[in-house]
């Protein structure tokens, strides 16, 4: 499988990365080289093989359903590019 400039622009859009036409054009061969190289995995027989989900056997823990953290609003907001009235502020999202 290989990508063309339309696919690159779609992937960039899904990735929320703004690319110019020139950048998208430059990415076409770069991404295709990498994709062509990883496609050698297709030759491996994986019949009956489960995809790996954990490298070291481990179990997902449950913890008591109690509050262990919080009340740190100012710390949470300390690095926000824009914070107003104790909230993160974003550009208007409704017309």
């Amino acid at each position, binding site marked *: 499988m290989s990508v063309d400039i339309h696919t690159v622009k779609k992937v960039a*859009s899904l990735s929320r*990365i703004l690319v110019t036409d020139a950048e998208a054009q430059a990415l076409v061969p770069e991404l295709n080289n990498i994709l062509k190289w990883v496609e050698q995995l297709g030759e491996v027989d994986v019949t009956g093989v489960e*995809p*790996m989900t954990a490298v070291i056997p481990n179990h997902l823990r449950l913890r008591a359903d109690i509050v262990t953290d919080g009340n740190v609003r100012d710390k949470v907001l*300390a*690095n926000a590019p824009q914070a107003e009235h104790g909230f993160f502020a974003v550009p208007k999202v409704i017309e």
Partner: protein
Amino acid sequence: MSNLTDLTVAEIRDGVANASFSAREVATAFNAAVEGGRALNAYIVETPDAALAAADAADADRAAGTLKPLSGVPIGMKDLFCTNNVQTTAASHILEGFVPQYESTVSGKLWAAGAGMLGKLNLDQFAMGSSNETSAFGDVISPWKRADGKALTPGGSSGGSSAAISARLCPAATGTDTGGSIRQPASFTGISGIKPTYGRCSRWGVVAFASSLDQPGAMARTVRDNAILLEAMAGFDAKDSTSLDVPVPAWEAELSSNLAGKTVGIPKEYRPDGLDPDIEKLWDQGIAYLKDAGAKVVEVSLPHTKYALPTYYIIAPAEASSNLARYDGVRYGLRDLPEGAGLQDMYAATRAAGFGDEVKRRIMIGTYVLSAGFYDAYFTQACKVRTLISRDFDAAFAKCDFLLTPTAPSAAFALGVNQDDPLAMYLNDVFTVPASLAGLPAMSVPGGLSSDGLPLGLQIIGKALDEQGVLNAALALEERAGFSARPEKWW
């Protein structure tokens, strides 16, 4: 006391404990070395006051008889670990100015053990790279030089850590290893570094790259120092869902280079046609060292080795594309809000302005392999091959206790030579990525010098949770290699 910066972690710890010198003298000497070493660009942020404060606490603890395991030892912290009130950037413009209001578990444990911070160490952007050339804060320059005098890479992604330790700008540092980011830079700079078993060290507060592979570890000049540092870093953490709830062994106390009764496996697939003769010679020398230490040598096979890199370059970008979705210009870091732009435009503009080219490339590859219609062909297939790679190791470890391989396929290369060819750069990790995919502990120790006079590392890969076996085999190599070369000071 002009050579305090030549001391190892163990020597500093013991010297402070028996009052041969004060912790403050040590911190002062390293602070001066850090300042004098700026030409290497190893540190993004210098924190001399933090180093002095920890040193004064260590001197007070000595007077009071309450010394801690790392009292008086100043270290460098890779700038991927969040440090309370000290800028943490992952070497990306998108996090420039980010000042965490919390401490990563691993750095917190090191400070609690008495260590002091000299500064935050440069790295490849989001730890994506093998040469430290993807940092938004400039290349790190290796203290090592070839005869041609060209500036060399210190390796990556933990290139600030490796350069600083090698140049004596710190006695030890933290690193993180996703596909070789501790071991390859250690190999390139003539130092040692260990990536423990996945889950040994908490990932909490470490800027995430590929969560199923990321693992913090130690870097220092000796095997013993790595054992000391790792003991302070490791341990269960409820804040990391993949943290292993197992006790931390006394790795330093149990160090032994006697390998009688041990069997070392030599994976035949790691000796491809066209392997650099310097690397081949080093590897054969390493085998001889381990035999001399009492180990029996067997050949083993890891048949899926050639698929490890392509597997890695599907899984790591896939996880990165998901992890890096958090950089949205809303909660922290950079925001680029063009005039009149809406929320979606702000995301796209922020990420275009904040991420470097390699980071964008990997996010887009990851997004593509996870997208509808391609998910099974790429991502699921890679996860299945990963199972096969892991099984290869299980089969090999039925015949041996640990593996010996070269760490990297070459010595350090000149800055700039691989920059335009991502695939050539990815091949640096050909010997380190398989152990990462299987979550196994692995360590690089200096084995000798190349024909160009540059350091070359040997890698020990161990069974899951057998860091002791890895450290002991590495110690046997270290004692026999007697590596004492160091870069001549030019900075």
